[in-house]
Each structure stands twice: as structure tokens, then as C-alpha cells.
């Protein structure tokens, strides 16, 4: 069941990449779109079969792989990974659909996208530390190539920076995993059994520290974030959508699953500092976003800010805040995906993303009125206006975290105020005002340009009006996650 999510895209990618005959660009696009849609539908089917009432792993698959290493092919899905899994397959569809039809080397490109989809899905469902790490590293390769080949002017710099950063992140994570297994004396890398081993607190701190830095690079948290704006600016639109929408979530997912899940005791001791780290990230990202003049950089820095909320919620680790952290992941995925898509349309039509040059794009005759309206919606969703998913997820984050970290939560809330500052500046400068001379005679926006954005916008509003549709999948898992951690903490040994 779950393997299909991984192996169908990989096999199709292999076919696309290595098929000896010629495949026309159109055919390769259609094939990849069909595969991605099939994967999406399959993930929805899984979601419909998913039993939200239990916290245990569902649809488990278990195949022993390399016994001597302790590596098993063990997959499973719970309320923490299911929403992310669906989000991943949805955004992959959108990324493929919104790709430029006349893209260079289409076969390779689409094959890489499918590979990326498969490896991210694999990372979300892996129930074995080493298997997770494998997928986590595999995901790096297609993304590096996607930035380095189809990127902007400074793509080499950005892609290499991304590669080095993420490789370091991978090394730290691997080191923590090895450390855990060797020091605890466990014989396998399987996740569930490892949770029952307890280590002296100092060791826990060391391992958790490595994990925090490793995943902190991926999320990204200040000061490990500088790869993100560069990567976003150089990556093409679909890649930006995937990067912001799904790949950053690997970091927060890893923190919740492995940081909080494996080292609850050390986590709870460090939690106040993590919350402070979240505050720094939120405020630093927001203030930076205010000063940007490139629209894409602004959205990228806003990601830094908004991912900080997830760390805050994870640090607080109350049942509500954990639920909120999952919700905020999905909400940020949808909203930042929408914003990157729209920025991409603007860039495609006007040839620039510079806030100082663009002006008056809401102009109904010669501007981009529908794109502008969607942008206002996306921006407002990001700023946490009610009726859209950003509001309820952020409210749950704050409501869940306030009881534990009042000061830090209030400081993070300043971030929502700052979000409206920078995004309002963006909308006001780019879309309001008189249409500037530099961007007159824009090419027509097709409905195919707008369709993906409209789908995301509809989802944002629907989940904003009816958050139950999202919350019910994760509630049991996140609630019991905390209970389990408490149990585990209770029987740990002193150091």
C-alpha cells in the first residue's frame, strides 16, 4: 500500500529517464502528470481508509533488509505523517502542472520531480531510522539537480550551498542515529523499539543537539537559514513551491518524530531554549522580510518566520500545540505554495520580481487582476486573517503554547503583526497604484496559469472555514504522542 507511493513514481521516473526510444516533451509531461495524480489519488484513498481513532502506525509494511546493519524496510503512517504525505503528493501534481511547457530537457526534469516526490514520501513513512536517513539523502540529489540545471543566473552557487548545507544536516542526523543505536545497545534501527531505550541525560543532550542542528538546517532556523533565500530565488517556480511547501516540513517532521519522540526528557529540559530559538527565528525572519525588495526573497524569509511557529508549538509539547504544529505545517505548505506560484506567474509575465519596479498590477485591462486578487488572499492567509487556514493554525499554536511559554508565545505573536507589515507592503507596492511604464503590454494570463493557484486558494479557504477536516486525522496521534513521551520520561534513569 504505502510502497506504491514510493515505488510507482520511482519506476516511472526510471522509465522516463532511461526509455531508449524518444518521448516527446508533451508525452513526458502527461505521463508524469498522470503518475503524480495517481499517487495523489492513492494517498487520498489511503487517507480515507485511515483510522483516525488510533495512534498506532497503520498500513505497516515490514521486510527485513540488511540484518547485520539492523536496517529494515519498515513503513507505516500515522496522524503526524498522513497530512504531510497528502500535501506532498498534491503539491507535486501542482508543481508538474505549473511547469513551463517548453522546458528544456523535459524527460530528465519530470523524472527528477517524480524521484523527489517518491523520496520525500519515503522519508515521511519510514519507520526505521536508517531508512529515513536514506530517503532524506536521496531527496537531496534530485533537488540539487533541479536547482542547478533549471535555476536562475546564480543557480550554481545556490545549488551548491543547498547541497553542502543539507549534506551537513544529513551527517549530523546520521551521527545522532548511530550514536543512539550504539550507545543504547539496540540491535536495530527500528523506530518504535528505540523509543523504549533510555540513555543518560548527557548523552541525550549530545544526540538531541546533533538532531536539532541537523533538522534546524532543513527547517530552516536562524542562523542556519541562509541557504533558503538563495535556493528559492534561483529555483524555478515549481521547485520553489515544492521546496517551501513540502521539503522544509521534513525538518519539522524530523524534530517532532525523532527529536521529541526519541529524547522526550532532554527535549522537555531544553524546551524553554527551543521556544526562545523559535522567537529569534520568527522575529529575525520577519524583520528580514520587511527589508527585501525581491518578492521571492520576501516570501522565503516569511517561511523562515512561519516555520518558527512550528518549533514553538513543538517545544511547548502540549497535546494542543502538537496538533497545531502539524496543522501549521499543512497550512504553511498550502499558503507558501500559493504565494510562490503567484510570484512565479508575475515573474513569468513581467520578467521581474523587483518590488521597486513593479506597480499597479491590479489594473483590470492590462495588468493581472485575478492573480492580484489571489495574491491578496494568499497574503491575508499568511498574515493570519480569519476565514483562512493560516488563522486557525496559528491560533492553535498560540493557544496551545501560551500555557507553557507565555512570554515566548506573545513575542511570536508579534511575528503575525510583522507578517502583515511586509506582505501589505508587497501588495501595496506591486499591485496597487498606477501601472508602471516598465511593465505595460503584459502577455495574457491563461486560465492554466491560474488554475493551480485557484485550487490552493480554495483549499486554504475550505480548511480555514472547516478545520475539522484536517484536525481529525492528527488529533489522536498528537495527543498520544505527548502521553507516550511522558510515560517514557517517567521510567528513565538518572545520570
Amino acid at each position: 500500500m504505502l510502497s506504491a507511493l514510493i515505488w510507482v513514481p520511482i519506476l516511472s521516473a526510471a522509465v522516463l529517464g532511461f526509455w531508449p526510444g524518444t518521448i516527446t516533451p508533451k508525452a513526458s509531461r502527461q505521463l508524469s502528470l498522470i503518475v503524480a495524480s495517481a499517487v495523489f489519488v492513492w494517498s487520498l484513498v489511503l487517507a480515507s481508509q485511515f483510522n483516525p481513532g488510533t495512534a498506532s502506525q497503520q498500513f505497516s509494511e515490514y521486510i527485513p533488509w540488511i540484518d547485520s546493519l539492523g536496517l529494515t524496510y519498515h513503513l507505516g503512517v500515522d496522524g503526524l505523517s498522513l497530512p504531510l504525505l497528502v500535501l506532498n503528493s498534491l503539491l507535486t501534481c501542482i508543481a508538474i502542472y505549473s511547469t513551463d511547457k517548453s522546458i528544456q530537457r523535459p524527460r530528465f526534469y519530470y523524472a527528477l520531480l517524480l524521484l523527489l516526490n517518491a523520496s520525500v514520501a519515503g522519508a515521511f513513512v519510514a519507520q526505521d531510522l536508517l531508512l529515513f536517513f536514506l530517503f532524506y539523502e536521496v531527496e537531496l540529489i534530485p533537488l540539487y539537480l533541479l536547482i542547478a540545471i533549471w535555476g536562475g543566473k546564480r543557480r550554481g552557487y545556490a545549488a551548491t550551498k543547498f547541497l553542502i548545507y543539507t549534506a551537513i544536516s544529513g551527517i549530523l542526523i546520521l551521527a545522532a542515529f548511530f550514536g543512539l543505536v550504539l550507545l543504547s545497545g539496540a540491535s536495530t534501527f527500528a523506530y518504535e523499539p528505540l523509543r523504549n531505550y533510555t540513555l543518560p541525560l548527557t548523552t541525550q543532550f549530545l544526540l538531541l543537539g546533533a538532531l536539532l542542528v541537523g533538522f534546524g538546517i532543513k527547517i530552516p532556523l536562524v542562523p542556519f537559514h541562509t541557504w533558503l533565500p538563495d535556493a528559492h530565488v534561483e529555483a524555478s517556480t515549481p521547485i520553489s513551491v515544492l521546496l517551501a511547501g513540502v521539503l522544509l516540513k521534513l525538518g519539522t517532521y524530523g524534530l517532532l518524530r525523532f527529536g521529541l519522540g526519541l529524547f522526550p526528557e532532554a527535549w522537555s529540559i531544553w524546551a524553554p531554549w527551543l521556544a526562545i530559538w523559535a522567537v529569534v527565528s520568527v522575529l529575525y525572519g520577519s524583520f528580514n522580510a520587511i527589508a527585501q525588495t525581491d518578492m521571492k526573497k520576501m516570501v522565503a524569509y516569511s517561511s523562515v518566520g512561519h516555520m518558527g511557529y512550528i518549533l514553538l508549538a513543538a517545544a511547548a509539547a502540549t497535546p494542543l500545540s502538537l496538533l497545531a504544529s502539524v496543522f501549521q505545517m499543512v497550512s504553511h505548505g498550502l499558503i507558501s505554495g500559493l504565494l510562490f506560484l503567484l510570484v512565479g506567474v508575475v515573474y513569468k509575465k513581467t520578467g521581474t520580481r523587483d518590488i521597486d519596479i513593479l506597480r499597479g498590477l491590479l489594473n483590470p485591462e492590462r495588468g493581472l487582476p485575478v492573480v492580484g486578487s489571489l495574491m491578496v488572499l494568499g497574503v491575508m492567509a499568511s498574515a493570519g486573517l480569519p476565514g483562512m487556514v493560516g488563522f486557525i493554525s496559528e491560533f492553535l499554536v498560540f493557544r496551545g503554547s501560551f500555557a507553557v511559554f507565555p512570554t515566548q508565545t506573545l513575542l511570536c505573536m508579534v511575528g503575525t503583526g510583522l507578517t502583515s507589515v511586509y506582505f501589505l507592503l508587497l501588495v501595496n507596492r506591486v499591485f496597487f497604484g498606477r501601472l508602471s511604464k516598465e511593465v505595460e503590454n503584459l502577455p495574457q494570463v491563461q486560465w492554466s496559469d491560474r488554475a493551480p493557484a485557484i485550487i490552493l486558494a480554495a483549499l486554504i479557504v475550505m480548511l480555514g472555514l472547516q478545520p475539522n477536516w484536517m484536525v481529525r486525522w492528527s488529533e489522536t496521534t498528537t495527543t498520544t504522542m505527548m502521553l507516550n513521551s511522558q510515560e517514557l520520561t517517567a521510567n528513565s534513569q538518572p545520570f
Partner: protein
Amino acid sequence: MTQFLLETSWWVPLYGLVGAILTLPWSMGLIRRTGPRPAAYFNLLMTVLAFLHGSIVFRLTWNRESFELVFHWLKAAGLDLSFAVEISQVSVGAMELVTGLSLLAQLFALGYMEKDWALARFFALMGFFEGAMSGLALSNSLFLSYALLEMLTLSTYLLVGFWYAQPLVVTAARDAFLTKRVGDVLLLMGMVVLATQAGSLNFPDLYDWAETAKLSPTVATLLGLALIAGPTGKCAQFPLHLWLDEAMEGPNPASLLRNSVVVGCGAYVLIKFQPILNVSPVALNALVVIGTVTAIGASLVALAQIDIKRALSHSTSAYLGLVFIAIGQQWNGFALLLLFAHAISKALMFMSVGSIILTTNNQDLTEMGGLWSRMPATTTAFVVGSAGLVGLLPLGGFWALRQGVEVFWVSDPWIVAVLLLVNALTALNLTRVFRLVFWGKPQPKTRRAPEVPWPMAVPMVSLTVVTLLTPFIMQSWSPLPDWEYVNLKAVLLLVLSGLVGCGLGGTIYLHKAWSRSLFLPWRFIQDLLGYDFYIDRIYRVTVVFAVERLSAINAWIDRYVVDGFVNLIGLGAIFGGQTLKYSASGQSQFYVLIILLGISFFGFLMSWLFDPSLFKTIFDGEFWRLSLSQ
């Protein structure tokens, strides 16, 4: 049937939203053939429905206990977020006022916005506006109220920014949104605190909690201040007041609603907060201070405005300041009465102003004059509206202010003084505006000024009648006292203050030259008032400057320190590699030398690590002494 209508009274806010959604095909440009008018008609229809449904419910609530409807929205992880709706006489009455005024404003807009190509978008926003406001009137939960307040913020932004191509509109929309958002974020903080402390966000539960709450004084004060921050922004009170003045750049029918009911919504929410605010005396005092400062300051500022809409919008701030004082002093009845009277009169005055602007294409008071004979209905509307606002003739404003004067007569005489001062200043301002616009000689822009067409005249005249009937409406609501029981001194003082204001306004020298006096102290005062005490400049050099600098510095640090460090490491690695490649000379002697050096270095290192005493003897000179002495 009646029961059904009562139980479905929460539909009323939805009508407006449905209307907004129905206009989408036109506002998005999907249907072009019919022009945007059908969208407007759909919206009007929905508003009529809302009004009718509301009035039936209003009739039904007349002699009935108020009751509450609760909808559970989100239940997760021990949290129960519910939308509570209160159906009571007051809440349904407020909703009725909102839908009624919205209906009139939309009718008025049909004429006022006739030639605008984006009519459909305008009506969609008006429907959204109406829905949010009437929802706010019914809401009985802090969570729902907050959400609706934010929706109001959003729709204010979009309505002010309706003519987004104009530079002044762009800044006005931005300031309106950001100012209100500051208040809203503070309110959100207060809400999160309350939710954690009280467990529920429905007002009845919060009231119960507030009665027994044990909070430290600091927390209580901060909580109270956070709660009043939201309404302060909504009601355009100092220090979050500047947006209303700028927002006058937006279309007039929206300004009409904004100056009458939107600001009122903020105050209405504040009245709902009032039992919670009792936990913090500081917050209540802050309300009184804010209200006093705004009431007097805005009345003064209004005197120096030459834009007709701005002259009126500052008086809105001033009246809402009086409402704030009333709420701070816990006289909610007076607050509601004043809000009601103000909403109706202000709406009427803005209709009159809208007619003037549409006819003359001009908002500058100094370029008008002599309109009374050309636009009789408009003139009547202005006069009746002014009379309904000021405490002089026995219309709404008089009765409301009279109650205020009486309730504070014994306890807080200084508030009576504030009320009288504001009344006098408002009367002065309105008389000034009246003289400039309607009296005097016609100027080029007002020479050919026909009365407005039917779609604008009908709502204007109907509202004129309603304004004249306000005392009777108030009578049926809470009986006005008989003349014998009225505190005659208070009434006399009130009328006197109104007369003084009108007298001053009628006699001061109004001339173009007056608008820029040559006498320097005069001119200073004029500029001080004309530029709102320069508060926007103060903000620009403090808050705005601070945020801007901070973000610039932050971006600099990010680019050159954080990222610079990363790049330095990269550069170091490349530089090291590039330099070391010259060490590969190809001569085997060289490699052997390097190997030898390396081995000896590590040999020394190891022996130093494992037997430091050996080195000690060498450095002590012991080794040399021994070897030399042999």
C-alpha cells in the same frame, strides 16, 4: 414559523456574505455582457432579505427572554471553539441598524457609483462588510467577535483601497490596515491569555470567570489594555486614530458605513468586553483617558479641516471618544444611546456629503458655497443630520447627551465639562461647514449644481425622516423622562453649549484668506490642528523609522555577517585547496620531506600527549645541561 425565524436569525449575517459570493462572476470578469449591475441587484436583494428577516426577528424578541445559540466549530485536544450567538433585543436591534443602514447605503451607492466600472466588486465588498458587522452584533463569543473584527479590518482595507490606482488611496489603505492590525494583534494576545485562563471564550463564561478571577495586578492591567486595544483601533481613538481620516479617500457609501456603524461595532464589542474589563481598573481608566483625549483633540482638529469628509470624520472620532468615556465609567446605557443617535445622524450627513461630492466633483470646503437653493434635499439632510448629532434641538443627539450630562452630573462633573465642550465644538464645526458649503455666494464649482438623482435622493430623504423620528424610536426603547423630572440645569447647560457653538460658528469670519492666516500664532495653531497635531509625523520618525531601520540593519547583518561567515568558510576552503595544489611539485624528495616532517610532528605531538615530562626536561634546559656536561 416564528420559531423558525427566531432560530435562524443567525442567517442574517450570512445573507450579506452570500450576496458577496453571488457577485463573483461579475467582479472576476466572467460575465461582461450584462455589465456589473446585476451583481448590485443581487446584493441589494440579499440585504433586503436580511433586513426583513431581521425586522421580523426584532419584533419577536420584543417581549421575549434573550437566548443563546451555540455552534461547535472545532473540538480538538481538549479545546472547544464554539460560535455563540445571542438573540436579544439589543443585539438584534444593533443588527437591524446595521442592515438598515447598509441597505440605504447600497441604494445610495447605486447612484453614487453608477459610472464606476468595478461596481460589482464594490457591492461584493459592501455585502462582506454588512455580513461581518451584523455578525458582530449577534456574536456572543470573543473568538467569533475577534474573527469578525478581523474581517472588518480586511474589508475596510479593500474598500478604502477600492480606487487603488490613486497614490493617496494606496497609503490610506495601508495605514488603515496596519493601524487596525496593531490593535487586532494586541487583542489576539489578550484573547489567547483569556482562553488559557478562563478556558472558554464565550462571553457568559468569561463574565463568570471575571467575577472570581484572581490575577496579579500586572497581568490584569496588561490583559485589560490588550483587550481595549482592538476597539481602540476600530473606533479610531488616540493613538490608533489616524486611519479614519485617511480612509476618507475611499468611496463615499463605504465611508458612510464606516463613520456610522463600523466604528460603532468597535464600541459595541467594547461594551461586550466591559464585565471582563472589571478585572483591571487601569484599563477602565485608560478608556476614560483615551476617550477624553480623542474627544477633545478630534473636535479641535475637525475645526481646521478643509476637506468636507475629513471635517466630519474627525467628529466621528470625537463622539466615539465620548462613548469610550461612558464605557470606561460603566454607563453602557448612555454609550448605546449615543452610538445609536450618532450612527443615524452621521450616516445621514455622509449621504448629504456624498451628494455634494458627486454633484460638484469637489471635496474642498473653500471652493463651495450657495448650495442651499440648488440642492434643497441635500441641504435639509445636512441640517437634520447636524441637528440630530448636536445637543441643541430635541432630536437623538440631544437626548443621548442629556442622559450623559445627567448621569455624570454628581459623580464626575469634569466629564460633564468634556461633554459640553465637545458638543460646543461640534456645533461650531458643523455650523462652519454649513456656512461654507450651503451659505454664501456660489463659486465656480457650485454654480451648476442640480439635485441628485432618485437612487440617491430616496435613501437620503428616508433617512432624514428616520433621523427626525429618532426620539420616538428611543422612546419605545427606553422611555425618555417627562419634562418635570428632567434636570433643568443640565438641559440648559447642554442647550447653551450648543447655542454657543452655533453662535460662534455663525459669527466667525470665514473667508478664503482665513484659511491661511498671516498672523503667525494663528497660523501655527491652524497648521497644528490641520495636520492632526503632527501625530503622523511623530509616528513616521518613531515607530515607522524604528521598524524600517531595524529591518534594514537586520538584513545587513543577515547578508554580511551571517551569510558572510558562511561564504567566508566556503572561500577559505577554496583558497586552501587552490593554495595547497602548488605543493604537488612532482619531485619525490619533496614528498619524502613532507612525509618526514609530518611523522616527526605527529611523533612530537604523541609523545607530548603521553609523556609531557620529557618535554619539560627539554624546555627546562635539563636536557642541554646534561648533554653539555658530558
